[in-house]
Each structure stands twice: as structure tokens, then as C-alpha cells.
């Protein structure tokens, strides 16, 4: 069981009403890897991440986590078993302070490491320490993104899911965030990253998948895809 990938999608179909959002998607993420999923807006990337939590549920196929099918499990079950997500739109709790938001990340593991982990997050994202008693709604988009990632890390996840951490942020902030992600990846964290910003994502990743209208079209190592003509034209703006 431990020999297989940490997470695996096997022929997963997902529907949003009439819309066939994911079409027989298969992919896998090995322990310790950084894998990214790139694709245009509306390709189904966020749907794929959320389907891990059963929102929406897979209509067919299997979502295996450490060898067991979790496609029928509740969201809180999935979270309690070591999968954490910084979701699309960040979704920090607007009326809670930075510290309270961080504590919300500890639900799956309890409070025993809370203080130590909070300090770790403040080292990772010093901006959060400056704003520790500020309500999340008063922070900038970049700070909220840092908070969303830190909150996910507070559960000491085995698998970290990141949905477009660069979306809507200034280039300098994107750089900072990706530098932090690189540190995390080096420390052995398994990361599954969904991005439109293919340039940053591919440079960070061991492997990547390209998604087009609900299907996986291409896969390869980060550098292979960075060098691929088609990918360059479609997702890297020809740079």
C-alpha cells in the first residue's frame, strides 16, 4: 500500500449539472513530489481539487489516497486524514484575526503543536506576524494568500493542495510566495499546485499535467513542458 502513489485519480468523471467538468481524468502524485496542474480559466482545475473533498462528488472513477478510495468520503473526513487545501479565492475567515485563522488549521490534529507551528508560520511569512491580531478582511490579497497557505500548513498535512496562489497578486508578491513554496518543497512536503501562471508553476514542479476543457492533454516533467512549443504558445504567452 505504501509503495503506490500518495494520491491517484483513476478515470474520474465529474459533472456540474449538465456540464461534464472532468472527463476520465487520471493522474497521480507521489510522496515528496511537487506536481502542478496547469490550464486555462475554466478548464476544470479547481473542480479537480475540490472533488478530492467530494465537492462536487465524482460521478465515476476512483480517487485514491494512500491506496484507499476517498471519493465517497465527507470533506471533513478527507481533511482529518492529512490533506489540506489553500482554495481558490483564498477563503480566509474575514471576521477572524490572523491568529484565529491559523488556529482553524489545527482542527484535524488538535492544539498540541499550535504555538510551535504558529511560530513556524510567522518565520515562513513574517508579514503574518506583523498582522497577527488584525482581522483577515482588512489585509491585502497577498497577505490573505499567505494566510490561506499558512492555515493549510497548520494541520501538518501529508499533501498540500494549492489553488492558484498567484492569482491577482503583484509580481513581487508572487515571487515571494513561490520562493516560500520552493522552501516547502525542499523540506519534503508533497505539493499539488493548480496554476494558470504556468511559468512559475512549471519551474517549481517535478512533474506537471496540462488540462484542457476537463481532460488531461499532456504530462511531463516541469522542464519538458517548459520547453514544449505547444505549452509555450498556449500558457506562457510566447515568452
Amino acid at each position, binding site marked *: 500500500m505504501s509503495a503506490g502513489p500518495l494520491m491517484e485519480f483513476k478515470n474520474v468523471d465529474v459533472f456540474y449539472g449538465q456540464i461534464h467538468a472532468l472527463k476520465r481524468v487520471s493522474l497521480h502524485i507521489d510522496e515528496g513530489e511537487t506536481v502542478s496542474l496547469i490550464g486555462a480559466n475554466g478548464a476544470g482545475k479547481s473542480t479537480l481539487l475540490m472533488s478530492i473533498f467530494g*465537492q462536487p462528488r465524482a460521478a465515476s472513477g476512483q480517487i485514491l489516497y494512500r491506496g484507499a478510495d476517498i471519493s465517497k468520503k465527507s470533506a471533513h473526513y478527507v481533511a482529518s486524514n492529512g490533506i489540506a487545501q489553500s482554495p481558490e479565492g483564498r477563503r480566509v*475567515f*474575514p471576521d477572524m484575526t490572523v491568529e484565529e485563522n491559523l*488556529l482553524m*488549521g489545527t*482542527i484535524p490534529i488538535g492544539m498540541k503543536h499550535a504555538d510551535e507551528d504558529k511560530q513556524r508560520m510567522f518565520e515562513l511569512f513574517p508579514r503574518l506576524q506583523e498582522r497577527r491580531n488584525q482581522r483577515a478582511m482588512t489585509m491585502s490579497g497577498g497577505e490573505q494568500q499567505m494566510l490561506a497557505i499558512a492555515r493549510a500548513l497548520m494541520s501538518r498535512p501529508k499533501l498540500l493542495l494549492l489553488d492558484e496562489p498567484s492569482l491577482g497578486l503583484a509580481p513581487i508578491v508572487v515571487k515571494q510566495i513561490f520562493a516560500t513554496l520552493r522552501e516547502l518543497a525542499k523540506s519534503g512536503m508533497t505539493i499539488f499546485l493548480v496554476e494558470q501562471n504556468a511559468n512559475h508553476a512549471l519551474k517549481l514542479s517535478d512533474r506537471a499535467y496540462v488540462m484542457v476543457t476537463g481532460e488531461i492533454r499532456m504530462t511531463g516533467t516541469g522542464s519538458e513542458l517548459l520547453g514544449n512549443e505547444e505549452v509555450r504558445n498556449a500558457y506562457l504567452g510566447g515568452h
Partner: protein
Amino acid sequence: MDAIFWQQMVNGLTLGAVYGLIAIGYTMVYGIIGMINFAHGEVYMVSAYLAAIAIALLGFFGIHSFPLVILGTLIFTIVVTGVYGFAIERIAYKPLRNSTRLAPLISAIGMSLILQNYVQLSQGARQQGIPTLLEGSLRLHIGDDFVQLTYTKVFILVAAVLGMLALTFIIQKTRLGRMCRATQQDRKMAQILGINTDRVISYVFIIGAAMAGLAGVLITLNYGTFDFYAGFIIGIKAFTAAVLGGIGSLPGAMLGGLILGIAEAQFSGMVNTDYKDVFSFSLLVLILIFRPQGLLGRPQVTKV
């Protein structure tokens, strides 16, 4: 200011504190699942019967000292009322979690009718009562006049304030409170973080019902009588208080309760007792026209 004003201030504060306790149930449930729990007034009504049963039972076992009777009654009533709150949500609302917004509202009205009729059948339609448990009063002299502050009213005020403080502490400082707030602010995200939101919603119903149970004991101590229909008018008053303070806001519910209680008592004292309900509901209409979000509520922002 004359004695009548201060007397009505005292009466209004006690009444308002109790409205506030019941309003907490409306506002927390609204905050977390966006529905008005119209059966909440009935929870209060049931708790009045439970309080009377507890007092009778304790008397039967020869317990008559006020502290013991009130402690036993409070524990029994709050626990059993909490069970009612839990059961109501499980039976009438949870199965409708993913249906239209109107469905649980209708279900709530049905639950309210069921509770009224069940109490009427099992306890009889007549008014019931309890003996006065706490005799005596303080008199505060103002000029030639005086304000009468019964020990019962003092007890009600102290107990209601303690209840509200305890609740505020739970919501602001504990893990359970943070889970409630997270579920209220973004239920889907709360689930993704590992919170069993169905369970949190159950807790909110239990907490709301427990507060109504506390209110039920306190009002019963003050008035001594109640019937199966007692939940209706007080429920609507507490709902008014919740809207006045800003539905969804916890401090708003407490503040709204106090303001409504004082306004109502002053109106009774200065104008007319018969029209006090008209006055309260006119207040509700005015709030809905001029400040629909309530005193401490935030304007409704539609989530995209």
C-alpha cells in the same frame, strides 16, 4: 426622573435580558444556516413546563432551599431543553439542508405547531403555575417615592448576564466557538479544514435552546404562570429583538433584547399597557424600514 421611570427601567431590564437570551437562539441559528427557527419560541415554552416539573420533583424529594432548588431546576431544564433543540434540528431541519430556503421555514412552523399541541395534549390547556420561590425585595427610595427591586428580578438579571457572559466567552475564546464562527463565515471552507459542520450546527441549536431554557426558568420565576401558547408572543418579541440588534450578530441580540425590553416597559409605564405589543411590533416595522440590517448587523452582501 421620577420613581415610575426607574421602576420601569428595572422591569424593562429584566424583561429585556430575558428577550436577549431567547434572541440569541434566533440569531445564532440564522447566522449559521440562514433560517429563522420559528419553533424557537416553543422551545422556551417547553422549558417553562420543564422548570415547573423540576421544581415539583425537587419539592417531592423534600428539597426546598432556594439555591438547591434553583440549581437543580436550571441544570435539569437547560439540559433537557438542549436535547429538544438537538432533536428539533435533526428531525425538522437537517433532512432539508440542501433544499430550497423556504422548506425549513415551513418545517419550522410545523414543528412549532407540533410542540404546542403536544404540550397542550400532555399537560392540559389550562394555565399552569409554580409557587413563588424567592420572597422579598429591596426598596430604593427616590424622594418620597421608592423603586421596588424584588430579589427575583435581581436574580434574573444576574443569571441572564452570567449566561450571556458565558456564551460570549465560549464563542470568542474556545475551540468550539471558533468552529461555530468559521462555519458561520464560510461553511464550505470550514468543511475543507476538517470541521464536521453538521455537528457544529447541532451544537448551535443546543446552545440556542439552552439559552432559551435559561430564559424559561427565569421568566417562570418572575411571572409564575404559563400555558402551552406562551412561546408565541415571547418568541416573536425575541425575534424582534434579534432583528433590532442585527440578526446574525450575537452582541446585537443581547443589545436588541435590552432595548426592546426597556422600550416596552417605558411605554407601558408612561402610555398604556394594553398597547405595549403594538408598540414593540411598530418598532420592528420601523427598524425594517430604516435600518434593515439592525443596530449591529452588517448590510447583507450577496455572495458570488
